[in-house]
């Protein structure tokens, strides 16, 4: 993969060029882009209006105050929007690369396939989800009773872990496409379904679901525990609060496992195109 540096671009420079081209392309239709970004902002903000309505009617979300729930909601949405922005190439991988056979062309380029697929598109549309998530997160910190100063460090760390985890899901989904060819919509259960589950406190779910989103998909590690730590809220399930300062690392571990799975899948790839 190494070539003389004078002739080839380094990976970050190459990525920056691809991302720049993608941004220019998306802004070619400014009207459509504006409608999409606003639609994205409104959809996701309305999602929180639903939770707020439940809170309004029942006085609490299963005993949780609205501030804590808002922090959880904001965390999971900001993390997911980052993964959506970066990982578009993996999302469309089955339909646009495997089925058409154009993945073969990527394999001919002297760069990591992960880098090339990251450069497929730097999607601007999730900026709507990102902004509203940030908005709800800040509002939640405003409303929550015992916000810790350490939240300023732990929350960005948790968002990074969450983005890595969701990006890992997208990479895993793309790796599955080598078997299924077309993208599997079932994986949406882990992405959109993960956002849905992540925005509620862990205690609200049955044991099988709690285990799933703690040990298989480390959603609780990037969302629930860091939020408890930042708000100095004791865990009703009995885990020590300090665990939230370290648990986002699980998101990166999940990402690493998915990258390994990806490399294995690429090694066994047989072209489907002509």
């Amino acid at each position, binding site marked *: 993969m190494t070539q003389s540096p004078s002739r080839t671009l380094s990976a970050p420079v190459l990525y920056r060029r691809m991302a720049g081209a993608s941004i220019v392309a998306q802004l070619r*239709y400014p*009207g*459509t882009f504006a*409608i*999409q970004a*606003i*639609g*994205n902002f*409104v*959809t996701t903000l*309305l*999602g929180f*209006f*639903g939770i707020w*309505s*439940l809170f*309004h*009617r*029942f*006085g*609490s*979300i*299963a*005993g949780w105050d609205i501030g804590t729930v808002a922090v959880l909601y904001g965390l999971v949405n900001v993390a997911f929007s980052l993964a959506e922005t970066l990982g578009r190439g993996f999302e469309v991988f089955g339909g646009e690369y495997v089925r058409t056979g154009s993945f073969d062309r990527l394999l001919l380029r002297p760069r990591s396939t992960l880098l090339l697929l990251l450069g497929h598109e730097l999607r601007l549309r999730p900026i709507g989800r990102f902004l509203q998530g940030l908005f709800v997160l800040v509002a939640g910190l405003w409303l929550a009773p015992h916000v810790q100063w350490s939240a300023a460090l732990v929350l960005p760390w948790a968002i990074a872990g969450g983005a890595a985890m969701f990006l890992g899901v997208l990479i895993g989904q793309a790796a599955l496409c080598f078997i299924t060819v077309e993208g*599997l*919509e*079932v994986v*949406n*259960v882990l992405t959109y*379904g993960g956002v*849905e*589950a992540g925005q*509620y406190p862990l*205690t*609200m*779910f*049955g044991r099988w*679901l709690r285990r799933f989103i703690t040990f298989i998909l480390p959603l609780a590690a990037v969302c629930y525990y860091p939020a408890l730590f930042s708000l100095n809220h004791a865990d009703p399930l009995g885990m020590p609060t300090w665990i939230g300062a370290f648990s986002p690392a699980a998101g990166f571990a999940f990402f690493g496992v998915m990258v390994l799975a990806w490399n294995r899948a690429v090694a066994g790839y047989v072209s489907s195109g002509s």
Partner: protein
Amino acid sequence: MSLRPYLTAFGLQWKIGLRYRIAVVAGLVAQMWFGAVTLMAYASVYHAAPDVQAPLSLRQAMTYTWIQQSLFTLLPLGCLPAIGDAARTGAIVYDLLRPVDMWNWWLSASLARLLGNAVPRAVLLTCVAGPLAMLVGLGAWSLAGPESLILAALALVSITLGALLSATIVMWWNILTARTLSPLGSYAVGTPLAVLLSGMLLPLPLYPDWIRPFLLAQPFAGITDIPIRIYLGTPIPGGIATGLGLQLFWLMALTLLGRLWMRQTVNRLEVQGA
């Protein structure tokens, strides 16, 4: 004027909807996941506040959620994909040349697409969430039967109107697509509106009391919310007649205005492509 071309348009899109069997199963898994997450969240919210008199009992909220999940693809999430493609490539000009009433032509195709997607999924999920869930001992989480046979029959009439209403709203997205020359805008506007206003996000009766009359009176309530209320036997202000009346009113109003808008759009349509 013969009905045949419209029936052909209907038949074609209906078959496309039935074609993707794996997508149906994938959708089933996703809807069961979302259903399970939502149900657990509602259950713990209801149990944490036993004194609150909600407009829906927990059992009713669960049935509401299951029916909503099973009818997800009946919602007008965006334009008809075929029209989106036609608008982008310029093939829309063929539709303009056909010696048929374009509104009815597109409407029959849109209705067939909705039904072809929704009917198999609804039947499957109803079987899984209803009888099957009872058999495996999850009766408390299942989809409950109707209050009475008369209500079930009325709900069936109402859901038929709901399907027509949804197809009429899809027509509005179709016209928007023909106007903006891209299907993306219609999805960006249509999906959030449909998900929120139909009661998919949170049952409409559970929103704060001050906003409920408005939510009942807007057209999206006629797609699934009013049929489900009739099925559950929850009171609608003014009785079942108001519910059916609202559906009929929106059906007529949206058809008349939509036809006007379509005529105006077609007159100044600029086709792209060659």
